[in-house]
């Protein structure tokens, strides 16, 4: 269950956004780190089929995103940077709607989400309208939602941005536990360096280019840096500014 990106280049109105991206994601928690505007969201929109690939190839194990979109969607869970919940519907209505888009009955959805929502401390909010939830709770609903159809791959685009420390901790620990327990291939994109652990496979994207990749502690040793922050700063800032 791997995701392979080969020679992907993407331009928007003749302006290059991604250049020659090559990477392979194995099962587990993978981190894509990059500053705002690095091209993380564009890469995610290519991975989710929201944008068409202009050059290169993206495969999910044996499926090519350009040809097998439907098969991939059945195995793909996504949390987008922008909240995509329907604010006027309740938590349960949002979840059953998403389940139905994957052909799942309301009863199946309820069975699957009950333990997840209990873990995420949201089980009492099922009948509440999403509009009444705070940002942290909305994110938790989205996390629960992306697992309804039991995906093999999970893509999360800056899923903890704007949340308080407790919510961030709860969400990231939940996703890490899921990745381990269910052998999911997770791509966690962020610009928050404290979310990276030393054993995480790390991909650093800057100005549309993948400038470094490898296990975090290996990269720290390679560049002789003591923290992810220093490593990131060394790799992404022009020499004159250091």
């Amino acid at each position, binding site marked *: 269950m791997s995701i392979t990106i080969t020679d992907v280049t993407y331009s928007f109105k003749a302006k290059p956004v991604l250049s020659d991206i090559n990477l392979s994601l194995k099962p587990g928690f993978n981190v894509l780190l990059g500053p705002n505007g690095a091209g993380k969201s564009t890469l995610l929109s290519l991975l989710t089929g929201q944008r068409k690939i202009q050059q290169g190839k993206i495969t999910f194990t044996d499926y090519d995103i350009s040809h097998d979109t439907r098969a991939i969607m059945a195995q793909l869970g996504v949390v987008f940077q922008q909240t995509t919940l329907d604010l006027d519907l309740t938590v349960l209505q949002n979840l059953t709607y998403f389940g*139905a888009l994957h052909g799942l009955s309301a009863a199946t959805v309820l069975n699957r989400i009950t333990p997840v929502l209990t873990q995420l401390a949201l089980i009492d909010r099922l009948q509440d309208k999403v509009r009444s939830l705070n940002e942290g709770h909305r994110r938790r609903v989205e996390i629960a939602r992306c697992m309804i159809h039991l995906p093999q791959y999970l893509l999360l685009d800056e899923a903890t941005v704007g949340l308080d420390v407790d919510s961030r901790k709860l969400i990231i620990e939940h996703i890490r536990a899921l990745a381990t327990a269910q052998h999911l291939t997770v791509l966690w994109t962020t610009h928050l360096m404290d979310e990276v652990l030393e054993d995480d496979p790390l991909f650093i994207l800057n100005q549309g280019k993948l400038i470094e990749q490898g296990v975090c502690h290996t990269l720290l040793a390679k560049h002789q840096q003591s923290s992810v922050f220093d490593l990131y700063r060394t790799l992404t800032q022009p020499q004159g500014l250091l």
Partner: protein
Amino acid sequence: MPPYLICFWAILKREVLRFFQQRSRLLSALVRPLLWLIVFAAGFRSALGVSIMPPYESYILYQEYIVPGLCAMIILFNSMQTSLSMVYDREMGSMKILFMSPIPKSFLLLCKLIAAACLSLLQVVIFLLLANIVDVEIPWWGFIYAIPSVFLSAFFLGALGLILSNFIKQLENFAGVMNFVIFPMFFLSSALYPLWKIQESSLWLYWICQYNPFTYCVEMIRFALYGQFNIQACSVVLGCVLVCGFVAVGTFKPKK
């Protein structure tokens, strides 16, 4: 239940839930045509008489004449509001979730169009019931006959709205749709005046109305309300359903 059916019900349910939660939309959907019927038609009643013409078998009051046009107006507004809700969904990201489904995009869009058509149908039925209260008598079987006509018209106008939503980049641009699509379509049709009356006053206006597909929606509903079948109107609307349906589904852009 088969997955496709589950998906269809979910999309239909979501649209209905959202419609009833937007109370102002529900209210304006009914108040707008009722104002036309009660205020506008009452004012013009004495000025405009409508002579005997199919499907009517006797002289009718102007109020009775404009009811099918007002039904079509409800459908037109609802269809364009559906296109607005598509733009909203695209801006809010709900459209991304819709297309994360493994079910084909064309089927999902078809479900959206059917859901919008069902909402139009619901509004038209409520309007016709209210119209009966203000002494516009529609035969009860007219309701039954009108259902397929209203549904077909709603599907066509919904598909047209979907095509337009490709060109609307922001919610604010909807005012342009009002001015350049809704009003011209409505006023340049047989909704308010019979075509022969328009022909008497202006030939070029008559030809524009003749080529306006909305005219055929109005006429199809008009005939259906009196238990008659207008084959010309039905053929035109059916053709528009097919063309606009294919174009809408084929050209829809989920992302701006």
